[in-house]
Each structure stands twice: as structure tokens, then as C-alpha cells.
């Protein structure tokens, strides 16, 4: 009877503590195996959800980029740390930028990355994904989550998400596709442009790049 009503005043305190712990273990045990807070589970859940939504959405299937970007904004963006990505891509010049410049630079770079990500997703969403188990200690705060895109007749493409644990959960600060770090790949371009025309020049450059993609997408729809 004491097992069914564990928290009776008559029960000795050590037994109560034991049952309490047992209850906690029962609740946490199964949750740990599929811990929604783990970075690899997060990547898997978000990827599968987004791919599922893309394949089900008629507007996206018929080529609506606006709808696709909307979906990415809602589902994917919250898990990215764009300020870190922009800082890493800008390199040493980041420290020379004013807070206002940093904000605008991050905003423009984010727009460009989201667009690129949307293109990549619509091109590869029909492929199969292989989610690799995370090789990290539970105490690690900086991990790499490996996903592989399986494609017929070719070596699988590795997508590695570099993630950092923050107060707001795990955030992606770099994506490596086939061993190519997106953030590192922009560094030379950014450095060259800043050397020639300063941080403002880089912001302008990104702006005009984003505008030209906007008008290209508009022209393609007509």
C-alpha cells in the first residue's frame, strides 16, 4: 500500500527520498535517451520537420521562394547565432566596427545566408539524411553535429554544424558542407572588401547583392 501512496506522513523519510529519486529517474530516464535539449537531437528534429514541411507545402513545391524563406525564418533561424557567424566571417575587422555597423552587417549577412540555405534546401530536400551520433561529453559546450546527405552514385556529403551552448540553448555558429566552412569561406572576401572600401563598403556590397537576388527572384516568377 505504501508503494501506491508513497507520500504518506507515516512513511519514513529515507523511503520517501528513495521513492522520490526513483520517480525522478523514471521521468528523466526515458527523456535522456531522446533528450530534446541535446544538440544532435535538435539538428535532427529541425531538419526532419523542415524537410517534411517543404515536401508537404504545395506553394513551396511550385517554387515559392518567399514561402520557403518564411518557413526557414520561423523554424531554422532561432537556432542560429548570426552575430557570432558575422563576427567570425569578418575576422579582425569586426573589432573596428561600431555597434551600429555590426548590427547592419549582421542583418545583411543573415539575409544572404538564409537565401543560400533556402536554395540548398530546395535542391537537396529529396535526399536521404543520415544523422550521426554525437561524439561529445555531456559537459561539452562546443560541439560538432554531423549529418550526412546520401546521394546515389557518389560519396555522401557531410554537413557539420558547429554549435555552442548558450543561455538560450544550443546555437549554430558555423556550417561546414563537404569540409568547407561557410564562415571561413567568406573571410577572404570580407577582408578584401573591407581593405578596399571599409566596413560601410562591405555593408553596401552585401546590400546590393541581396537586392540583385531579390530582383532576380522577382523576374524569375514572372
Amino acid at each position, binding site marked *: 500500500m505504501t508503494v501506491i501512496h508513497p507520500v504518506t506522513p507515516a512513511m519514513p523519510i529515507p523511503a520517501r527520498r528513495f521513492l522520490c529519486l526513483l520517480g525522478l529517474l523514471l521521468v528523466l530516464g526515458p527523456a535522456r535517451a531522446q533528450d530534446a535539449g541535446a544538440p544532435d537531437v535538435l539538428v535532427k528534429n529541425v531538419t526532419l520537420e523542415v524537410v517534411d514541411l517543404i515536401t508537404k507545402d504545395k506553394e513551396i513545391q511550385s517554387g515559392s521562394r518567399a514561402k520557403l524563406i518564411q518557413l526557414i525564418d520561423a523554424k531554422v533561424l532561432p537556432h542560429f547565432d548570426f552575430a557570432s557567424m558575422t563576427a567570425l566571417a569578418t575576422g579582425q575587422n569586426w573589432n573596428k566596427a561600431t555597434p551600429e555597423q555590426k548590427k547592419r552587417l549582421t542583418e545583411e549577412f543573415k539575409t544572404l545566408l538564409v537565401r543560400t540555405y533556402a*536554395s540548398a534546401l530546395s535542391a537537396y530536400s529529396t535526399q536521404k539524411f543520415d544523422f550521426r551520433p554525437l561524439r561529445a561529453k555531456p559537459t561539452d559546450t562546443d560541439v560538432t553535429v554531423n549529418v550526412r546527405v546520401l546521394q546515389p552514385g*557518389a560519396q555522401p556529403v557531410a554537413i557539420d554544424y558547429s554549435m555552442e551552448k548558450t543561455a538560450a540553448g544550443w546555437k549554430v555558429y558555423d556550417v561546414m558542407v563537404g569540409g568547407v566552412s561557410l564562415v571561413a569561406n567568406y573571410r577572404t572576401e570580407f577582408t578584401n572588401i573591407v581593405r578596399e572600401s571599409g566596413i560601410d563598403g562591405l555593408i553596401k556590397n552585401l546590400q546590393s547583392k541581396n537586392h540583385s537576388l531579390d530582383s532576380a527572384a522577382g523576374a524569375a516568377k514572372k
Partner: protein
Amino acid sequence: MSRLARALAVLALAAAAGCATNGDTDPRDPWEPANRAIYRFNEGFDDALLRPVATAYRDTLPEEVRGRVRNFFSNIADLFIGLNNMLQGKFEDGVTDWARFAFNSTFGLLGLHDIASDGGLEKHNEDFGQTFGRWGVGDGPYVVLPILGSSTLRDAVGTGIEIWTDPIGDFRPIEVRNSAVVLRGVNTRADLLDASRILEEAALDKYVFQRDAYLQRRRSLIYDGHPPRDSGDANPR
């Protein structure tokens, strides 16, 4: 062979151009002016001929057929992928590659079906450039080859050996060989259509973006996806 000779001639040309570089170039790319010229030529060639043909090829043939073409050439390539794994001392991978070739050439009907992958024998990515890299040969200067695109001095030598030893080169009669080479090229370009469009959208300076991606990619391939942490910056200046 004549293609090899041409590739070497271009290398010599690029080397000569390299003597005239100024001090403000990327140390990994001392021949940038010559490379950019060849890059522009390649872009023009791609715009005018290669991409339209590859697009028509992709839009005309169903994936079912293109997949067979891809598998056929991919199967032949497994022979040298296996050899390169052996040369790098990765005997288990090399045996896998040759087993893939044996299964796919027979039960896979001359490689048209990649039954080995279905059976769990995974495809690898190896070539002579990677083998030299594994042996400790550095990248050397970045080189843009005509038509073939991004390379380094080391990888260009590897590509030269690959062209020279290409099993397709032994196909006879000559018309069959030429058709096979063209078909392989068109199929490869068609598979890259999505990637090249994404590159176009992502890059601010396509030449620089493609160069840096190539150098990063090769480094990753040489270490089979696990390169040691970069000691220096991607851009050492």
C-alpha cells in the same frame, strides 16, 4: 595525351605569369592575374556551351537514365579510387573499392547499377592529388585549369596522371571514346547545376569564393573529413 600536353603547357604559362606578380596578392594564389584570365574564359565557355548542354541533358533525360550514366562512369572510377586508397595505406578502403568494382561490373550489369552501395559498401572519394597530399606534398600555388577549373599545382599533376591513365581513353573505336568522354563531362556538369547556382547566389566575388572553397574542400578530402585544426588563419595576411 594531347590533353595532358595542353594542361602542362598552361601550367608553364601560368608559371611564367607568376613571375610578374606584385606583392599584394594572396600567398596561396601568386598567379591570380593569369588564373582570373583563365577563369573568365571558363565562365564564358560554361555560359555559351557547357551549362546550356548540361541543362538540356538534365531536362530531357529522366533521373532513371542519368543515374545509370552516373553509375557507369562512377564504377570505372572506383578502380583508381581503390589504387589511391592502397597507395595511401588505407588497405581496407581499397579492398572495399575493388569489391565495389567487382560486384557492380558483374551483378550490377557493367556498373549501370550501384548494388554495392545498397549492400553497404560505401563509395569513397580519392585521387592522385589526395594521395600526394597524404604523402606530405603541399598544395603548391592555386591554379585554374582551362575547362577543368580549380586546382593546385599538386592536384594538377594528379589530374594529369588521371587523364593519362583514364580507362575511358582506351575505348575504341575513337568515336566511342570521344562520345564517352563528352557524355561523362556533360553528366558531371549536370550534377553540378544546383551547386553552381547556389555558388552564384552566395558569393560576393565568385573567383575568390570558389578558390577558397576548393582549397578547404581538398584539405578536408586529404584527411578524409577530419583535418587537423587549422594552426593559422584561413587568410594569413
